[in-house]
């Protein structure tokens, strides 16, 4: 990976880290409600994969830990923050919240809160792309625990039989909510669970963004050119709890500390310092800039934006004024 791309990814991962930490703080003072699932520790996954894909063009879908996936697709950070604040300027107009960031203009097809729910939706996006003979692909980011849902097996089967251009990214962070993978899952290597479906599968170190990028290039290239599915497992770890209500009783401090030594930002920064491409002082300067941007622009935007208009409460339940509800545009006063 050249120095420019390394710098770009390091900067973007740092931004994602600080964005999520801001969310953590704002949740503590109840500016953000609901459930909040944060991404620190896993940044190399979303950033590394999307560096190999076409953010804003390829169609991305994920679970409820979705803020950073939205950011890497180009959803403006202030709109993500405003969504968390439940504001009208949020990416989903305040109707979705943390778990349901959407942005049609960036082809970010949403975060979903049912574990495993996005698998078939992703295959459906790919089916549409295939029917419409488009060159974009669908990319589905989910965690290891989603692979214990029926939708994983059902969807892999159909995506394979129907030859759908969908890339499944498994961010294996070793825990399904608060249950360790070895206590819930018969096969620890998630990529091996794909073999029966005749879908090519690979794995790599999800803490090393360069490794992720390299593996994702192969994966994305396969789906884009072959127009068939591919599965990539990224071995990773989340530094914080499953959600903000997670007491963390299910894993040891030693384990968390061990994984913190593999912080994806540090892994890349160390390598760049060793290679003489970047200094820790420059990194600290970036950090200052990013913190200022979050503090001076992103949070104030969310704070100062209006709440959704109560008049819109029922607006999006059904499509407004759809003529086919009443017998079509030529119908005269219904039945």
């Amino acid at each position, binding site marked *: 990976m050249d120095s420019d791309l390394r710098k770009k990814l390091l900067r973007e991962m740092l931004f994602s880290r600080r964005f999520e930490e801001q969310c953590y703080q704002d949740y503590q003072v109840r500016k953000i409600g609901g459930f909040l699932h944060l991404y620190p520790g896993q940044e190399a996954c979303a950033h590394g994969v999307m560096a190999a894909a076409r953010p804003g063009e390829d*169609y991305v*879908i994920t679970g409820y830990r979705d803020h950073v996936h939205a950011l890497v697709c180009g959803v403006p950070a202030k709109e993500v923050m405003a969504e968390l604040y439940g504001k009208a300027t*949020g*990416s*989903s*107009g*305040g*109707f*979705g919240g943390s778990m*349901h960031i*959407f*942005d*049609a203009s960036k082809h970010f*097809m*949403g975060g*979903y*809160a*049912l574990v495993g*729910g996005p*698998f*078939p*939706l*992703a*295959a*459906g*996006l*790919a*089916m*549409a*792309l295939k*029917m*419409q003979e488009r060159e974009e692909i669908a990319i589905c980011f989910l965690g290891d625990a989603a692979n214990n849902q*029926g*939708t994983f097996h*059902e*969807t892999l*089967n*159909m995506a394979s*039989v*129907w030859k759908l251009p969908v890339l499944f990214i498994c961010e294996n962070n070793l825990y399904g909510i608060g249950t360790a993978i070895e206590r819930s899952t018969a096969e620890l290597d998630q990529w091996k669970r794909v073999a029966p479906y005749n879908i090519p599968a690979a794995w790599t170190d999800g803490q090393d963004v360069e490794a992720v990028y390299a593996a994702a290039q192969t994966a994305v290239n396969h789906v884009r050119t072959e127009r068939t599915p591919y599965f990539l497992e990224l071995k990773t770890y989340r530094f914080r709890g499953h959600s903000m209500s997670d007491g963390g009783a299910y894993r040891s401090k030693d384990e968390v500390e061990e994984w913190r030594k593999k912080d994806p930002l540090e892994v890349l920064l160390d390598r760049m310092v060793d290679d003489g491409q970047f200094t820790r002082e420059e990194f600290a300067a970036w950090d200052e800039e990013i913190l200022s941007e979050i503090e001076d622009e992103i949070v104030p935007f969310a704070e100062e934006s209006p709440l959704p208009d109560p008049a819109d409460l029922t*607006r*999006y*339940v*059904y*499509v407004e004024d*759809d003529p*086919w*509800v*009443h*017998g*079509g545009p030529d*119908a005269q006063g*219904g*039945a």
Partner: protein
Amino acid sequence: MAQMQFWDAVRRAHDEEMARDPMVIVMGEDVGVAGGTYKATNGLYDSYGAERVIDTPISENSFVGIATGASMLGVRPVVEIMSVNFAWLAMDQLFNSAAKIRYMSGGQFTCPVVVRSPGGTAHQLAAQHSARMEKVFMGIAGLRVVTPSNPKQAYGLLKSAIRCADPVFINEHERMYNLAGEVPDEEYFHPLEGSEVARPGRDITLFGYNISVHWCLAAAEKLAKQGIEAEVVDLYALNPLDREGIKASVSKTHRAVIVEEAEAPVGVGSEVMAIINEECFWELDAPPARVSAVNTPIPYAHNLEDLVIPDEDDVVAKALEVLGRG
């Protein structure tokens, strides 16, 4: 206006819409090569091929999810779930995805997916093939639910559902696919909201939907012989229910019986009664009543099955009771 069987009316609606729009596809178990369990997709595979008439594996939840995902990008999938009993398996994708994506995205995406499925009791199919599930589907905000009682509605409701931008669940009936009726020769779009007066009357309203419309019509014939003019209202739309239509009929007849093939709790009957209470309670001359199935899973033995499911005579008896002549 030609006579057409119910299955053929559904098939014709598919065929016309697929011919018009290459984004209309059909998915489901045995819908393609096998021609459809109830022939509702018969011949489509030969006309439109495997890419548009897709035989699915038996994975109801995920093929409904795939259809929903495709619909987000402009595909218009029509999914057949072979039996409504199997649709329980697809509730996650139908309720959590299709019905909610528009709302939780703040209106950015729509899910114009149609799911058709036959429910109801046929003959000795026992507990796991005799569900009447409309009560579950009609309670979900964001999901339109319609239920045709005749071939014309079956044709026109599917035509409209395919073109409507909202997700639509079409509740058909296993015993009605061979029912014949008149269907317009020209293209016809049935409204997805509202209700129809299937037989006008002035003394009492019999509310039915899907198969129970036929029990109501038969009961109205028998009541007419006793000098009672029953009005039959066909609630072809279950979500949303036609509050105005219910109010208009009850305000005219002042008495109401709601007839459903399903067991009573949390059903169409209780919901229509609630609407009558809310909209026109003071118009009533007698408490509304309902005719429902016995609250059991469906038994296999034919004598027991017959006991569970209401018929036209139950409707007549209940109507007479409401009229004070029971």
